[in-house]
């Protein structure tokens, strides 16, 4: 391999510092996680991760997260389109608001959503007569996870819409396509990779989410318990290897989602000629 040419100074310093920092704060503790996961033996590992109560928490953490990510996919595309293409009063404020779930502490979001959807809450009170309960049900978990994932689809799709050349849409229009046909055949295929990437990003974030969910979920075993909460319960019982095993499962899940979104992202970049 050719010797890399480094014109600017600071390569050794920044490389050394970055690696030292990452090792201390990430690599060493994580190697601890992997060692601890299997320290109780394979039998304990499998018993922990296949326990019925744990398995039902997977349905909540991985299943409801996916539903929330899909809903964010739908509304996120519309929001990205509206923010990128339309001019209307308040657009800039809406645009800035998109990132609120990034900046707002999760516990704050959790108590706010619980208050809104509780039986006497602003929305909860109106749903109560119809027998719809949100707080302390899986629907509540879904609401919290939708909130948490909201920025991802908008922020991945918005720049793609802004980069779309209007020429192509004009060509479609002159060839007699109506607006819906243009959207369906020209715009949507161009947006699809970024939409899917955004959905996977929102999904990845929701799978590990804790703070906003624990308040609204009520943490009912076999119903609304999420996997991260079970990790904390294992630690409280000093079952460290059990907690590590569940942490390992969450890591593997997140890693697979990350891998898929990376593949989608490179597909998107290739299509847009960025790679």
């Amino acid at each position, binding site marked *: 391999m050719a010797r890399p040419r*480094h014109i*600017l*100074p*600071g*390569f050794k*310093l920044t*490389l050394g*510092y*970055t690696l030292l*920092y*990452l090792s201390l*704060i*990430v690599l060493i*503790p994580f190697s*601890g996680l992997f060692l601890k996961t299997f320290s109780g033996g394979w039998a304990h590992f499998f018993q922990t991760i296949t326990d019925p109560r744990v398995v039902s928490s997977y349905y909540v953490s991985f299943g409801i997260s996916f539903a929330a990510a899909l809903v964010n996919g739908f*509304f996120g595309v*519309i*929001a990205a389109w*509206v*923010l*990128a293409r339309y*001019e*209307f009063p308040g657009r*800039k404020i*809406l645009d*800035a*608001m998109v990132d609120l*779930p990034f*900046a*707002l*502490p*999760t*516990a*704050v*979001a959790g*108590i706010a959503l619980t208050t*809104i959807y509780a039986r006497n809450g*602003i*929305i909860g009170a109106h749903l109560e007569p119809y027998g719809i309960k949100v707080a302390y049900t899986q629907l509540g978990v879904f609401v919290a996870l939708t909130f948490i994932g*909201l920025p991802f689809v908008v922020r991945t799709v918005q720049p793609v819409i*802004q980069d779309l050349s*209007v020429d192509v*849409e*004009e060509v479609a*229009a002159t060839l007699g396509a109506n*607006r819906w046909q243009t959207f369906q055949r020209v715009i949507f295929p161009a947006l699809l990779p970024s939409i899917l990437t955004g959905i996977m990003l929102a999904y990845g*974030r929701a799978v*590990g989410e*804790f*703070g906003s969910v624990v308040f609204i979920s009520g943490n009912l075993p076999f119903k609304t318990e999420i996997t*991260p909460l079970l*990790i*904390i319960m294992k*630690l409280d019982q*000093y079952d*460290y290897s059990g907690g*590590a095993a569940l*942490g390992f499962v969450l890591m593997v899940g997140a890693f697979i989602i*990350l891998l898929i979104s990376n593949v989608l992202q490179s597909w998107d970049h290739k299509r847009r000629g*960025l790679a």
Partner: protein
Amino acid sequence: MAGTLTPFPTKAAPPRRATAESPVIKTVLVSLVLVFFGLFLVLPLFVIFHEAFSRGWEFILKTFEDRATVHSIQLTLITALIAVPLNTVFGLAAAWLVTRFKFPGRSLLISLIDLPLWISPVVGGLIYVLVFGRQGWLGPLFFPSDEMLQTSFLARFIYEHNIKVIFALPGIVLATTFVTFPFVARGLIPLMQAQGHKEEEAAMTLGASGWQIFTRVTLPKIKWGLIYGIILCNARAMGEFGAVSVVSGHIRNQTNTMPLHIEILYNEYPNTGAFVIAALLSVLALVTLFIKTYAEWRAERQLRAAAESAE
């Protein structure tokens, strides 16, 4: 590689008539977004402030006079004061490394920087419990047996000086630092990549030292990206719940940060105090969003100016 990371989206030209939707569709779409955002973004904020003020100013003042509240605010400030500068230095070093040099393992390093965004905050706390907790790797040192105290100098030292990691400030700082370390780096990398390093190279040929290049050339160029990264890192550090929850042990007046204190007050009656503190953190979040919007605007202008001067 140029352009793999677009830093800040540029504004699109207004679409022409043949390529615009009918006004009806447009209204429907805008209304959908307004309803969705209203439900998920505006309403939660409204409820926080509404509840916080529901018992009047007196109650708010009383909440802030409470010793446990004051302590939680202090602890949160101390934690952020340690974690944010650490992550700022790291972010600057990592961004310089990744955007100025090509080396094997570069993209792996970028993925590694993103790691905390991917894993559950609870796992972020868990890894430190597995190292420093009672049953952890180094557990025997921090929770020593009598035998350990006699044989190990280090265990005796830790015991005599009452050094704690888990259920104490160091653990809270570690977990917070871990969860928030990507933010400064991620704010800088796309910006520095887009700006390139021609100016830095020019400064070098003029005889500037590395430190001079960094402070006189690079720092002014990345100022707003850096400020946004720091402020986001700070908001996340002050608001972190999951990771801190695992390592803190929830000891009132000792290891309760503001978000953990919110949880405790929320379970009391009346729970208005929780919303008072939540409102304070919400103001912090809103300020963060405001600075972000401003920083984006400044960075965009800077980029445009750079593009014009390059032509």
